[in-house]
């Protein structure tokens, strides 16, 4: 079932949580809503679920306007950040809840409910824990119960609010892969909220980046990462060096050197900013390139697949560079080493 959100706004007191948000999700798609806290992503999700009433705008599910419909009528499954399991009910009864509260006409028989719940518990690999209570489960298990509970009523749309937010890193990665596999199997239109860019980029077919109640950019993970449309998106999607610079005669100057940045959008002499990701900068010990600038190594962290180097540029700014382990050993960097830094290629610069 497709989701279409048109011009949706919501204000809490003086806080504009959603500001004319428009969005389209195709049937069967897995879309991540990504943004910092307070960017309005959870509010948007709650409005689609019917847990919050928008001030303006409309929500269409499969082309049908549901803006004024009750949550129960929307056929939407919702998974809460802190699971929101019913503490007084067993795992089995938690999953059965949605089936038991259905109107008598459409409700499954007792045996039907039992079969359906067991099928779902198998799906989330918890069939042996059916009689346990939520307090006796780990975080990852609770989240799977919450998911099974939401799926029990066969929703056409699944909404997940920070589904892995409260879990530790290991469990989180496992569950993420598992959710992706589940989605491949069920093909339920899924919209999930996260503030973790890695999670959004790994899991989603498309990513919606939100900031201050507005949609900043929508696109495939690849597109938003490599062609960010706003400065906010660049900064939000991973580490980035920001160089403040000026543009003269079609060339961009950072400190003394000129960097041949793409300047089509800039007026001459206008102060601009240039963004370069740390892995797209290189360090050398000698002067080899006119685009280099001088810097001194401040800190090196070689623990990990890549070596993170922090330097101070000749004009006093902090610059971060990621090197491969081989390159790092070749250079033999230590705090205090004077070096030259240059971008690896010209298209690595993003101006905004």
């Amino acid at each position, binding site marked *: 079932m497709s989701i279409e959100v048109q011009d949706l706004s919501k204000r809490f007191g003086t806080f504009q949580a959603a500001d004319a948000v428009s969005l389209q999700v195709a049937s069967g798609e897995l879309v991540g809503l990504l943004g910092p806290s307070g960017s309005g992503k959870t509010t948007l999700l709650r409005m689609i*679920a*019917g*847990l919050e009433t928008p001030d303006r705008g409309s929500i269409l599910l499969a082309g049908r306007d549901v803006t004024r419909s009750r*949550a*129960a009528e929307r056929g*939407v*499954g*919702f998974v*809460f950040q*802190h699971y*929101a*399991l*019913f*503490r*007084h*009910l067993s795992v089995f009864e938690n999953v059965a*809840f*949605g089936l*038991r*509260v*259905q109107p008598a006409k459409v409700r499954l028989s007792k045996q039907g409910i039992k079969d359906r719940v067991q099928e779902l518990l198998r799906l989330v690999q918890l069939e042996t824990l059916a009689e346990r*209570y*939520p*307090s006796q489960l780990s975080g990852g298990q609770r989240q799977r119960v*919450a998911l099974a*509970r*939401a799926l*029990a*009523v066969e929703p056409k749309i699944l909404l997940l609010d920070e589904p892995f937010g409260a879990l530790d890193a290991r469990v989180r990665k496992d569950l993420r892969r598992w959710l992706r596999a589940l989605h491949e199997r069920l093909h339920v239109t899924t919209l999930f909220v996260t503030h973790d860019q890695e999670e959004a980029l790994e899991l989603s077919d498309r990513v919606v980046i939100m900031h201050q109640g507005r949609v900043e950019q929508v696109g495939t993970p690849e597109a938003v990462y490599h062609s960010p449309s706003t400065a906010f998106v660049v900064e939000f999607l991973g580490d980035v060096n920001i160089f403040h610079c000026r543009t003269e005669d079609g060339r961009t100057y950072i400190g003394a050197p000129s960097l041949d940045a793409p300047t089509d959008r800039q007026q001459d002499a206008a102060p601009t900013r240039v963004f370069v990701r740390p892995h797209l900068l290189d360090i050398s010990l000698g002067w080899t390139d006119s685009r280099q600038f001088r810097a001194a190594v401040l800190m090196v962290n070689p623990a990990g697949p890549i070596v993170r180097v922090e330097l101070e540029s000749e004009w006093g700014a902090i610059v971060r560079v990621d090197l491969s382990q081989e390159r790092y050993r070749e250079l033999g960097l230590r705090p205090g080493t004077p070096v030259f830094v240059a971008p690896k290629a010209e298209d690595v610069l993003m101006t905004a």
Partner: protein
Amino acid sequence: MRPRLVRGGLIGVALAFLALCLVMPLVAVFAEAFAKGFEVYWASISEPEARRALWLTAVVAGLSVPLNMTFGIAAAWAIARFRFPGRQLLVTLIDLPFAVSPVISGLIFVLLFGAQSALGPWLEAHDITIIFAIPGIMLATLFVTFPFVARELIPMMEEQGADAEEAAVALGASGVQLFWRVTLPQISWGLMHGVVLLTARAVGEFGAVSVVSGHIRGLTNTAPLHVEILYNEYQFAAAFAVASVLSLFALLSLGLRRAVEWRMAQPR
């Protein structure tokens, strides 16, 4: 050595205080009640006026509990789950009976519904008696005991948050299903605790009831009022005998309260 001395000293002071203010009076109540033997004791609590007083107390408490339970749940739900104009005022008003002296609480009803009040002549014309009758006692008891359940539930519901309820709504539960299947089971132990406190107070209330009851023997005397009358008539053994029944009830509710508190401290 020092901390141990301090600790011992503090425990000693607390125990001495407890003995003086709680244990000794309790022992005294039962000792006095049986001072003239078991027969006098039994006669004192089984004579018609005493029985009527105990019965009236049971009826008043028995009616106050469901009424204030309903009110308390409704108020707590409104306050914990919704933001509306006047919410803060409602929170303050719920606490009012705790802040006002019970005698004043009783007096309010006399001023409202008494013969000299603005409503008095109208009530008399329609043959409705509130003051110096059972409706007055009910009103006073309801007023004095209405904070207990709400006070207990508001922090509990706020701490639990609306998550589970929202989940139930998203799963298609109607308002009635939501209440019986999610809200009530989640607050049941807190509710029980509030009800124990509410019952204890409804049974023991003296001040407010004293003002509105009119002390008509065998008619509008509740058990605490009956104790006072007997005592003023120098019938000490009888006074303490009735008092001992109330004390037994107090001990029972104390035990019940401990049990509920223990259960609330268990996980889940």
